[in-house]
């Protein structure tokens, strides 16, 4: 029986269900100290004086440091994606020395024997600030004479990144029968992984060696970067990502606290732990989205798209974190979506503000792009008097046209938008809901029905290293795996991906079990430790299965290839005469002449009788560098009921049909889609990081920032079509971000659709009852 495609229950669950977990904050060490961080209470200020000495007199305190105390030997935090040659790259000290640039910027740390003592002693640190003007509005920030976030740079403009392809858009605009222009706002979001960030550094001081446990998505990248930032040599650093409680991009980062904790542990020669509180995390863990999108579309009256223009103003926040400038570039190629058109013009402008830095959040650039194209397609459909699904049908790439190179220059290898859409429409009962909508509109019902559609694609499987070079990303896109058959026939798979809830141990076991013909339970997956899994590029951007799973497949195939050589030798047959089925090598025509792969593993362990030139034991490593991205797609349909008297939106039904290529484990795929939907719907309806005019984060706790709970979300209907990727041997495409990318425009589109007869043309996210009610009031005025 094939493991791949089976809804295997997860190997990971046992310890998570019984509390036998290894979260970073669970880690303890003899003599361990607790570090607490004092943070700027204002958005922008000069730091005139920091005196940590009063903190040293507090009970339990062992040490305290200002930014200046720690500056020596500490480099700037890295930005690995300087997207243009002339990008403005400000210095980013892990702890502020002379100026704070967002509320939450660290200014001092205290180290004490327990966490209460450390937190208490922060109050004793004396800091004097001279307030400087905050920089909050993206357009004002670019105006002449605006206050500067980084005064030494002379501008708040971080970079301009243009892309122009196909016909000149100005020309297309002149020729088009219809043009539409819209402005969309991507509000800032707080990622809210359930596990707060934590780091524990355990030194072996005598040899200047350190084990860094961190709640990170990227142990391998973190190791390199910590070496660069702190000066601890890379070979003396071991980074371990133990159980990690979610990331959604927020743990794809090299944070100041990781560098600070390492530096302090090094100075003190003792283990040091830092764990953020949730409200501290809201200030200091990077935010997502944060963008103003000016979108223009040109079409003919029959709905044929001619071109698209997008101008993006993107809020970098105060500093460039690991991939901050690159996030909108990931989206830049996706604005044309699944549609054919002859002209595309885009400009991205990165802007510094005195707010928490932004960086990757689930989907990272692609949800923003999908939102813009899907929303303006709805508006175009309305303008042309076409059904929004019909408008999409007239423009999308047809199944027989794949592979297809889009106007943005991406080659989509495979897809079937017709199949996914037809399936979604059938599951949704589209025509019936449209009839009910018309009926309610006619009756003037105070509760209106609206239908939203999103026919999305995304770009997963980051990425061919050569492409990353062309995009000026300072790392590769390859992934590593190794497969080792132990003497008893059990198997260890080592992967360079580093999961935090995605179930890699289960899916990777399924892949390896199939290739090797061994039982699923005989496979163990090792990950998240730079010593045990020394090579890798970690987990983000739905790359793990597409790149990392492919590496596992290839490494396992190499193991079988070697086993075949040994089997042929032992069976005195030619390799070409051997069949390999369900873990058994047999000679064609002589079924009794057979060896199991487990027997071969033992033979290679004893090494008593190996063919000439074959080395003992069977391990194989493989590093995969993909040829292309992968392009999952799908159609999501959402029906909402909007109470026009209260502004309250209720999702009545939600259908998601996703095509993520071949499915390794349907249970995990469905779970990923559910979670993605929750986050995308949350952007549409609930979540926003709100700042006041001074630059303070008003939504600074979970009490003020609405992470949806169980009653806030509907039951989802999920289904799939399966169009295998042609660019990897597994045919997989990636699923982690699909639900998030697709759902936000479907939900907002549905609300606008419900209220359009009442004069509402657009809504700003999140579509809270108050905002909906205000929009209705303005429309009727």
């Amino acid at each position, binding site marked *: 029986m094939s493991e791949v495609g089976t809804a295997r229950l997860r190997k990971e669950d046992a310890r998570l269900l019984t509390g036998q977990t290894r979260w970073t*904050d669970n880690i303890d060490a003899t003599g361990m100290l607790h570090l607490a961080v004092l943070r700027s209470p204002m958005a922008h200020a000069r730091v005139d004086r920091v005196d940590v000495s009063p903190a040293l007199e507090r009970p339990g305190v062992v040490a305290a440091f200002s930014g200046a105390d720690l500056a020596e030997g500490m480099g700037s935090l890295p930005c690995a994606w300087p997207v243009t040659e002339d990008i403005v790259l400000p210095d980013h000290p892990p702890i502020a020395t002379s100026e704070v640039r967002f509320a939450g910027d660290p200014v001092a740390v205290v180290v004490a024997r327990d966490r*209460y003592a450390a937190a208490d002693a922060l109050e004793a640190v004396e800091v004097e600030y001279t307030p400087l003007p905050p920089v909050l509005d993206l357009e004002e920030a670019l105006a002449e004479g605006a206050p500067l976030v980084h005064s030494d740079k002379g501008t708040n403009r971080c970079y301009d990144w243009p892309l122009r392809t196909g016909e000149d858009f100005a020309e297309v605009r002149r020729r088009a029968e219809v043009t539409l222009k819209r402005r969309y706002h991507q509000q800032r979001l707080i990622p809210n992984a359930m596990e707060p960030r934590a780091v524990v550094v355990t030194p072996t001081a005598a040899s200047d060696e350190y084990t860094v446990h961190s709640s990170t998505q990227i142990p391998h990248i973190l190791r390199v970067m910590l070496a660069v930032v702190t000066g601890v040599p890379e070979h003396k650093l071991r980074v371990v990502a133990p159980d990690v409680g979610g990331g959604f991009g927020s743990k794809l980062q090299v944070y100041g606290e990781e560098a600070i904790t390492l530096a302090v542990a090094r100075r003190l020669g003792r283990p040091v732990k830092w764990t953020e509180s949730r409200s501290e995390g809201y200030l200091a863990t990077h935010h997502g989205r944060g963008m103003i999108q000016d979108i223009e579309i040109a079409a003919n009256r029959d709905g044929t798209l001619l071109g698209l223009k997008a101008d993006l103003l993107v809020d970098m926040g105060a500093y460039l974190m690991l991939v901050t400038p690159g996030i909108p570039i990931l989206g830049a190629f996706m604005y044309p979506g699944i549609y054919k058109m002859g002209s595309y013009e885009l400009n991205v402008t990165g802007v510094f503000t005195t707010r928490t830095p932004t960086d990757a959040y689930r989907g990272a650039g692609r949800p923003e792009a999908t939102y813009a194209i899907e929303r303006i397609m709805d508006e175009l459909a309305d303008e042309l008097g076409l059904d929004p699904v019909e408008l999409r049908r007239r423009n999308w790439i047809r199944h027989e046209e794949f592979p297809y190179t889009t106007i943005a220059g991406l080659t989509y290898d495979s897809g079937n938008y017709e199949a996914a859409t037809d399936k979604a429409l059938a599951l949704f009962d589209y025509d019936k809901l449209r009839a009910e909508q018309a009926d309610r509109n006619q009756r003037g019902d105070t509760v209106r029905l609206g239908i939203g559609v999103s026919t999305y694609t995304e770009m997963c499987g980051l990425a061919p290293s050569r492409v990353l070079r062309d995009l000026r990303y300072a790392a590769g896109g390859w992934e590593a795996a190794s497969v080792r058959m132990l003497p008893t026939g059990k198997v260890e798979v080592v992967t360079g991906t580093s999961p935090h809830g995605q179930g890699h141990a289960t899916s990777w076991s399924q892949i390896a079990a199939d290739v090797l013909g061994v039982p699923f339970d005989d496979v163990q997956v090792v990950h998240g430790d730079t010593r045990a899994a020394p090579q890798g590029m970690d987990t983000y951007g739905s790359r793990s299965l597409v790149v990392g799973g492919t590496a596992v497949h290839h490494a396992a195939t190499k193991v079988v290839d070697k086993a075949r050589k040994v089997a042929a030798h032992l069976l005195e047959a030619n390799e070409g005469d051997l069949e390999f089925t369900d873990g058994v090598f047999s000679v064609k025509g002589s079924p009794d002449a057979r060896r199991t792969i487990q027997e071969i593993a033992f033979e290679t362990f004893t090494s008593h009788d190996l063919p000439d030139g074959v080395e003992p034991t069977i391990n194989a490593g493989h590093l995969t560098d993909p040829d292309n991205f992968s392009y999952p797609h799908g159609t999501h349909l959402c029906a909402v009921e909007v109470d026009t008297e209260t502004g309250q939106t209720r999702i009545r039904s939600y259908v998601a049909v996703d095509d993520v290529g071949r499915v390794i484990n349907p249970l995990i795929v469905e779970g990923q889609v559910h979670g993605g939907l929750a986050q995308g719907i949350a952007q549409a309806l609930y979540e926003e990081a709100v700042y006041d005019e001074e630059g303070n984060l008003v939504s600074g706790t979970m009490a003020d920032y609405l992470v949806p709970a169980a009653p806030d979300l509907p039951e989802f209907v999920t289904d799939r079509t399966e169009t295998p990727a042609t660019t990897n041997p597994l045919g997989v495409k990636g699923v982690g971000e699909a639900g998030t990318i697709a759902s936000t425009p479907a939900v907002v589109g549905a609300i606008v659709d419900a209220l359009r007869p009442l004069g509402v043309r657009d809504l700003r996210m999140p579509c809270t009852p108050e905002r909906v009610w205000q929009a209705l009031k303005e429309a009727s005025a």
Partner: protein
Amino acid sequence: MTRISVKVDGTVYQDEVEPRLLLIHYLRDRLGLTGTPIGCDTSNCGACTVDLDGASVKSCSVLAVQADGSEVTTVQGLARDGEWTALQHAFHERHALQCGYCTPGMLMAARDLLRDNARPTPDEVRHALEGNLCRCTGYQNIVRAVLDAAETAEQGVAT
């Protein structure tokens, strides 16, 4: 310092604690029972939910001294002789956890619900779990798991 005596997962502990020490920190830092995690500092997320004398509480909102003389059950005390409860089985079978960070709290809150309401409707499950946030599952599989466990419990298996 105040002297307390608390029974946690079947073991009695006698300790001197600061009056301000939160129960969650007592469990994690003093007793080393790290199965119960901390997700926020405003009692919104529910990750630290434990059972205190037969009611689920957020252990970040209870002082250790308030637990004096009480019996606490954490996720680590659910399985008996290695045998999982129906809820644990149902969470596993329904894929009701991904990163698993909210799972201990979810299990404890769901257990409390099923004690009061042996056959809840899906809406009742959603409302009962309102104080427990999950960022991974979209809640759907958690709700399914709780409903499954209710059904199993009716057949005489402990939740």
